[in-house]
């Protein structure tokens, strides 16, 4: 999976965001992140209705080797969580940009363009990491 989907924004913490038509934002972790983590065996999700701060803890993804915090890239309230991840956390490994979505939230402000990067910029970040 080397192609970054063109409709997503990315963060330094290897999360992706997708702006939905209704103004909500779907969030997950990138292919780079899931590869680094390895097989995921447990995902701890926030509650629907929970308010998240930008940079605050959003979810915890656990692989066999380690637990990793996923931070909310933007502030907002949780509209939906991907319940499928309870039984099938490996969806994040198999389809990080699709079935492996983690939460959808209603952002407090708009999705602040300055805090996130476009696919090309994220790719450049990855290229630098792998160099």
């Amino acid at each position, binding site marked *: 999976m080397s192609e970054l989907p063109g409709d997503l924004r990315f963060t330094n913490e290897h999360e992706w965001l997708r702006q939905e038509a209704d103004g909500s934002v779907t969030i997950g972790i990138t292919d780079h992140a899931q590869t680094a983590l390895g*097989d995921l065996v447990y995902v701890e999700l926030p509650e629907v209705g929970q308010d998240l701060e930008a940079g605050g803890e959003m979810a915890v993804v656990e692989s*066999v080797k380690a*637990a990793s915090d996923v931070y909310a890239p933007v502030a907002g309230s949780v509209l939906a969580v991907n319940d499928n991840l309870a039984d099938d956390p490996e969806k994040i490994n198999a389809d990080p940009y699709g079935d492996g979505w983690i939460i959808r939230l209603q952002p407090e402000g708009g999705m602040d363009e300055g805090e996130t990067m476009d696919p090309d910029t994220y790719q450049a970040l990855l290229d630098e990491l792998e160099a």
Partner: protein
Amino acid sequence: MGLKTPLYSKHVEAGARIVDFGGWDMPLHYGSQVEEHHAVRKHAGAFDVSHMTVVDLQGEKTTDFLRYVLANDVAKLKDAGKALYTCMLNADGGVVDDLIVYFLESARYRLVVNAATREKDVAWLTEQAEPFSVDVTERSELAMIAVQGPSARELAAAVIPSECRDTALGLRPFYGLEAGEWLVARTGYTGEDGWEIVMPADDAESAWQALLDAGVAPCGLGARDTLRLEAGMNLYGTDMDGTTSPLESGLGWTIAWEPENRDFIGRDALSQERGKKGRQKFTGLLLEDRGVLRNHQRVVVDGIGDGEITSGGFSPTMQRSIALARLPAGNYAGAVVEVRGKLLAVRVLQPPFVRNGKTCIDL
């Protein structure tokens, strides 16, 4: 830039994620350690274990030497090819290493010890062997592949020297046979049936490829760890080390107290410890809810005291988190573990959790 086994380029070729293990560049997995784990329990998997240390011992007094330096008793190995699992102790009764020793023939034995303890163990053995005039030879020119799973022996038979095939298939558990420079042994670290095969380094690549061509899944250290944890097998350096005795590491069963007149290094210290009340115990834990237990997490036993997880992880076969732990003495069936700030309930129970493809505890 660590040490590389003869199979290193095969791993890279197969897309393995390479990690450092005790100074060696080893495959963690080839894509999915969970899939590799399942392959071993259901079919067959191959592990490059060439980083482990093979030490051959020879000399008239080798039996006497091993009866002194090992906590289990090699006098039990009466047939050629018979092997046993044992700890090697220091004078305080702490574990220097755990290993398998093979009785090959009169006055000749082979030890397979851990990778990370290579230098320490060879130095220890050489020093202790001196008064017995035993030759201690590290066989670093040999490679080793473990093939494990219900179909493992059948598939691996095609890969070993043809002249020993039938005899190899007839090997009982914990027996090995030599064929030239090869050693085929019915031993393993997964809780499944299978072989551990020692061979000249030059033969390793073709043997490995032949196994893969026969449908055996290449498996890395990630799967090796989840398999051994499910099987309730200790990992040196994590579950026990030089500061812990076998008695507090779930390895009391590997100590041969009889005959009483057999002196071995650590015997005195162990005897004293054995007599003490309130010794820590070593058990398994099963997390009752969702989550993952991790090494070093604190275990709290209500009304008794604290303990610690030594090896924590996830069981792909049971889809539950499990652990091995050193806990305070007492009779209790449950405890709580501090996991990321929360106290989660665990069941305290005896391992193994999974053997021969099946869960052996009540879930």
